[in-house]
């Protein structure tokens, strides 16, 4: 009979940080506090740089002054910062947050780290509804567009889920149905674009592409409200994602009601993606890339992944926005194009690095 070295339980060092407050308890990977601190610093620096840069540069000190409400050397600067640059950059940031969360949930639920929030057709759904409206409405009202986009995005993704459900959800079915609906949506969009007058078609195309140009404080408010409500809930749902990632059978044997939880999670993912489409159009890759980077920083446990991922998403988007304005200045790239231009090569790099 073999004998085993006697190691007492106390030498096992848990790989996390636990927060306990009376009966409330929450744990997060050990690496998270450090990662969060670093990322927050990077984000703050990036924010200041981003707001300083523009058609004409504003000194970082003035940026900070304008943000907190103090007087700046040139009163115009204050206006530019507060009414034009800050809303736009904040929208980018918040969109990055929402896309990151959506991507993390989607990759967790589908158990596939190649999944993207757009898998269920959010983009195509929003686009199809909006472009249909623009074509068929005699006098389109721009205020209605965001609501339609949201309805379309959420509607199509829920439809994908329902259609893919058959006594349970299989990954492959979900992907196929999502692809099917997304393709249908794109065809409808392409077709409808041929029915619009060229200038309206161009507007539609720009909207579809993903742009934060001309963002207002109203947009910021909209995003913040949604995120404030949904984010804490999602972070608490992280452990469901952890259990799901082990597989359907193990999750069920742990006592998880996988049907219900999965539906909730997918609805949440679709919701987050839908908000971003509403405000900023179709932005690809961020929802895919952010989880990957976060995972490399803090590991696969979803509590830490979500907390870190939102910061990564924010950094990516703010950085992309800066790049959009800088690369072909004075012209601007729509941010959806920039994220694709950055995202695709990163993707290829990821692939080339893989050993399996």
């Amino acid at each position, binding site marked *: 009979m073999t004998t085993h070295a006697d190691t007492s*339980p106390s030498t*096992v060092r848990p790989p*996390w940080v636990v927060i306990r407050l009376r009966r409330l*308890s929450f744990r997060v990977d050990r690496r998270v506090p450090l990662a969060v601190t670093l990322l927050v610093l990077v984000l703050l620096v990036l924010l200041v740089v981003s707001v300083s840069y523009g058609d004409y540069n504003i000194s970082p000190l003035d940026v900070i002054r304008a943000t907190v409400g103090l007087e700046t050397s040139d009163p115009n600067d204050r206006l530019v910062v507060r009414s034009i640059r800050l809303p736009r950059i904040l929208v980018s940031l918040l969109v990055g947050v929402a896309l990151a969360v959506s991507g993390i949930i989607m990759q967790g639920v589908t158990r596939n780290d190649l999944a993207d929030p757009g898998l269920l057709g959010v983009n195509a759904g929003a686009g199809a509804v909006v472009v249909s409206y623009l074509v068929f409405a005699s006098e389109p009202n721009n205020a209605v567009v965001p609501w339609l986009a949201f309805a379309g995005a959420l509607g199509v993704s829920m439809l994908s889920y329902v259609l893919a459900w058959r006594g349970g959800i299989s990954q492959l079915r979900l992907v196929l149905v999502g692809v099917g609906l997304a393709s249908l949506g794109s065809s409808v969009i392409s077709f409808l674009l041929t029915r619009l007058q060229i200038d309206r078609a161009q507007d539609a195309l720009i909207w579809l592409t993903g742009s934060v140009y001309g963002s207002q404080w109203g947009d910021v408010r909209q995003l913040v409200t949604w995120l404030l409500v949904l984010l804490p809930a999602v972070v608490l749902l992280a452990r469901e994602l952890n259990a799901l990632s082990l597989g359907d059978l193990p999750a069920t044997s742990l006592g*998880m009601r996988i049907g219900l939880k999965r539906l909730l999670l997918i609805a949440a993912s679709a919701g987050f993606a839908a908000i971003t489409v509403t405000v900023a159009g179709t932005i690809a890759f961020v929802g895919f890339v952010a989880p990957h980077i976060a995972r490399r920083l803090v*590991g696969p446990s979803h509590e830490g992944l979500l907390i870190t991922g939102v910061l990564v998403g924010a950094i990516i988007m703010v950085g992309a926005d800066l790049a959009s304005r800088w690369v072909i200045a004075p012209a601007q790239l729509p941010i959806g194009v920039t994220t694709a231009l950055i995202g695709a090569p990163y993707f290829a790099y990821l692939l080339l690095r893989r050993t399996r």
Partner: protein
Amino acid sequence: MTEPTGLAADKLRLGYDRDIVIDRLTMEVKAGQVTTLIGPNGCGKSTLLNGLARLLKPQGGTVHLNGQAIHDMDTKHLARMLGVLSQSPATPEGLTVYELVAQGRYPHQRFFQQWSAHDEAECEEAIAATHMTEFAERRIETLSGGQRQRAWIAMALAQRTPILLLDEPTTYLDVGYQLEVLELITRLHHERSMTIVMVLHDINHAARYSDHLVVLKEGNIVACGSPDEVVTEQLLADVFRVEAAILRDPNTGTPLCVPYRTIESTRKDCLGRC
């Protein structure tokens, strides 16, 4: 454990879509014992285990636990009584042993109580019981087959269930790891007085490590009882189509079968449909 943790199937009908694998099967799992399901490929042993574990919804009949139908029970409540280890589970990349074992506390946690001191203690105990302490921080994909199985067993242990179901825990492992896992299961059975139900494909392992054997063929129970009663030359011929000698294991005294040759079917062989 005074009250028998009665896990029983009553006229159970299980299958996948229109493919019925098990029909009108009735059996009782004896509390506090190690019961093993054996049988040839395709006999339905894994299907039966999944049915007992409520992982597969029955198309007819019921599975009872302590008199209550398990499909009526809240799944989380059930998870505190029944732990399951499925075949060849896949682990997410980058997950450490500790994190995997921690998942086992899921049925005991609530929305706001995500990691109590008790959870942590149970986790550490499970890791110690499976002798995985030195591997606790290692990533699962870097472990050997035997260690990986032990990690998953540790997760099931952290669940603190009186019953544990294991689906082919030794398949794909070499003989050393197989014994490692089986000895661990036996030890846990003694230390924690657990009721164990497992599916094995090796008859000798089943004979050596079980109190009670259930033999399945084509979805029906053809024999059940102690290894001595069940493992006979006749059974091996009828169920497994082999001619074998039955010896006695010199160390454990349990039946040991040595198969010699397959039995040619003397019935008219149907090439296709009869």
